[in-house]
């Protein structure tokens, strides 16, 4: 078995890391502080083809395999985890859903603007009473002739509003229709769709998370993605891709935290030696390095599996739960290695710690993913888990 990245993938990774170092690193601290949407960086990313990362060339995408896209996400997350969530939502949740489930007409209409970054995908699933449990939604889509009328409230919509100067949004909205939960592509600015409150967050402060209101929002039937009732399948495939994407984001935030803190530990002298010489510090570093190594293999393998067309019923929740744990453990250890400097916002560890904490919640809480894993394991014993 050859586990190495191809020469092309290594070249891509190098290019992605250069982008991250040159375009993102100098701005990351200020961006987090200002909580702005990083439009300048997104424009540059669009010019590099990143916003259409996995889309076919026919739609002006970069035609990257999922593993290369995961390397991109990892590189971005090294300097700014928010960007990995914004891009992950745009490409993995929205654009690829259109690619997998859309009609030719939908793909031709929506994918090129998404690839160019002229429109940004936003994912509208969560509701005030549907957080962990999205099996019953209150948002309704009622067929009326050639249209659907959508009513409801969606919360925590990532990329909900890119700002007055920014690209418009395409909302992938999940609503209860006659034949079950159904997905709709609703462009921003559609009458009846109002973008509301932006959620102030602990971390990921450059991802605009918004509440949106759909009030008598009329959408042509041609904007329905897939069939009525196909929503759960579309969401499952999208969230599976997002689990691997967030895994790559976790790799970025964890590995960069390890790099920053080990550099610090090799320079910081206390009790006559660099603290790298202290066994307690070595233990934190060793545990972190080992977890990152394990996560790396899990994420790259899962990404490769997606490229083979596999379903990740087991591996997606495994990646997600492990990634959340690694990101939390490593950022926590590395804050500790940096001591007081790990607590100051003019050093990078504090924001990496705040950003990483999201991973056990965003994309579904760990507890729910663990039930999914247990379901797969017990299925082999012919036991069906009742949630």
């Amino acid at each position, binding site marked *: 078995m050859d586990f190495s990245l191809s020469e092309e993938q290594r070249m891509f990774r190098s290019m992605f890391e250069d982008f991250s170092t040159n375009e993102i690193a100098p701005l990351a601290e200020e961006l987090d502080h200002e909580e702005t949407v990083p439009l300048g960086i997104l424009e540059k990313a669009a010019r590099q083809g990143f916003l259409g990362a996995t889309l076919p060339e026919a739609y002006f995408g970069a035609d990257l395999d999922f593993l290369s896209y995961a390397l991109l996400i990892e590189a971005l997350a090294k300097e700014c985890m928010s960007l990995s969530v914004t891009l992950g939502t745009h490409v993995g949740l929205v654009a690829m859903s259109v690619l997998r489930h859309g009609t030719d007409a939908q793909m031709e209409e929506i994918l090129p603007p998404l690839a160019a970054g002229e429109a940004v995908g936003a994912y509208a699933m*969560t509701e005030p*009473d549907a*957080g*962990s*449990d999205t*099996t019953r939604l209150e948002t309704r889509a009622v067929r009326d002739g050639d249209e659907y009328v959508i009513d409801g409230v969606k*919360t*925590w919509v990532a990329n909900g509003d890119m700002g007055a100067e920014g690209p418009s949004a395409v909302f992938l909205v999940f609503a209860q229709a006659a034949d079950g939960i159904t997905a709709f592509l609703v462009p921003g600015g559609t009458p009846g769709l109002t973008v509301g409150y932006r*959620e*102030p*967050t*602990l*971390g990921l402060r450059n991802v605009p998370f918004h509440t949106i209101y759909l009030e008598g929002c009329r959408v042509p039937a041609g904007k329905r993605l897939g069939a009525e009732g196909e929503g759960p399948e579309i969401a499952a495939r999208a969230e599976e891709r997002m689990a691997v994407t967030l895994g790559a984001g976790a790799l970025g935030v964890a590995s960069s935290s390890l790099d920053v803190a080990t550099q610090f530990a090799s320079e910081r*002298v*206390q*009790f006559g030696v660099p603290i790298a010489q*202290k066994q*307690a*510090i070595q233990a934190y570093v060793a545990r972190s390095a080992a977890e990152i190594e394990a996560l790396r293999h899990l994420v790259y393998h899962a990404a490769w599996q997606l490229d083979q067309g596999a379903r990740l019923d087991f591996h997606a929740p495994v990646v997600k739960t492990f990634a959340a744990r690694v990101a939390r453990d490593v950022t926590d250890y590395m*804050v*500790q290695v940096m*001591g*007081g400097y*790990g*607590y*100051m*916002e*003019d050093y990078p560890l*504090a924001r990496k*710690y*705040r950003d990483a*904490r*999201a991973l*056990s*919640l965003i994309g579904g*809480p*760990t*507890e729910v993913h*663990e039930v999914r894993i247990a379901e797969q394991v017990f299925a082999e014993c012919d036991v069906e888990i009742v*949630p």
Partner: protein
Amino acid sequence: MDFSFSPEHVALRRMIRDFATNEVAPIAAEIDREHRVPMDVLRELGETGLLGVCFPQEYGGMGAGETGYCILMEELGRVCTSTATNVGAHIGIGAMAIHLDGTEEQRRKYLVPLARGEKFAAFGLTESNAGSDAANINTRAVRDGDEWVINGGKIYITNGGYADVITIMAVTDPTLGARGGITAFIVETDWPGYEVAREEDKMGIRGTSTVELVFDNLRVPHGNVLGKVGEGFVTFMKSLDMGRLTLGAACLGGAQAALDWSIEWATKREQFGSQLAQKQSVQWMIADVATEIEALRSLVYRVAWMVDTDQPFSRVAAMCKLYGSEVASRAIDAALQIHGGLGYSRDYPIERAFRDARIAEIFEGTNEIQRIVIASRLFREHGVRVSP
């Protein structure tokens, strides 16, 4: 063994809880958002006499002992970690050093107004080369007649932006190390040569002042040497020991608040057809947190009793800080997880508690130093010296 609090301590707790609920809790979110110290609340606390809770009544204090001080820190920690931190630095290390090693004259002059909350205190030890290695300070004090001239600086000084009185550690004999080379000085912050250079931008406890200080030919009268020349290290170790216990108490309060929020939310929030309280994953988190809080509560108040009955407490006080900070972090992390998105939102108090809690494992001696203190005391009993 009677584990109950005395009627005086029960009454004290009730009084403090009322103050915390009515005066402190309402400002907790805004002082974090606005990044400011709640000076008016601190002054009000001063007027109640609570800023002298553990000091003898003859010095303007309440005479409620370390147990009373732990109760104060627990109740404040329950509603606002920033306020508890301001108070802890003022009483626990700032004023405490003067109480422990001050002359009668120094106590009359400085401890009394601090105990009465008429003035505020800070403790100046840390420098850029002296974090965990506290004895590695460079600030220099040179004798000049009846005065000492201090040059150097400090970093990460809590309360430093507004303190009136600060106990500073300086090197008085560079040929000696911790033993004999360091002296403690009581400094009034309006003296020439004392400058507050910058305020830090911290992840949490944003309702506190954490500053860099610069001393430029700061002249201090010989009468302001605290304890004996060359014995500053002993003074600061004793102060830090005391501070560790009460930081543990503040962590206890924070952990308890997190548990209370978790239980309440788990009874209200429904997903998958039933309350979160019905889910075993949530029950397990709450049971584990509750068990640790119970253990921490017993530890903290037993150590407070040991201090109040003049028993050695250095090792067990370090345990209060070590365990308390970790229990608080785990309790708050569980609360964040249980609250889901609300736990990550700045519209709710959990994420503030998450940011605030993290510093407890780092300041007042990192948890690595606490482990060294504990291990070295245990090995010393077997005749083995352990160094950091």
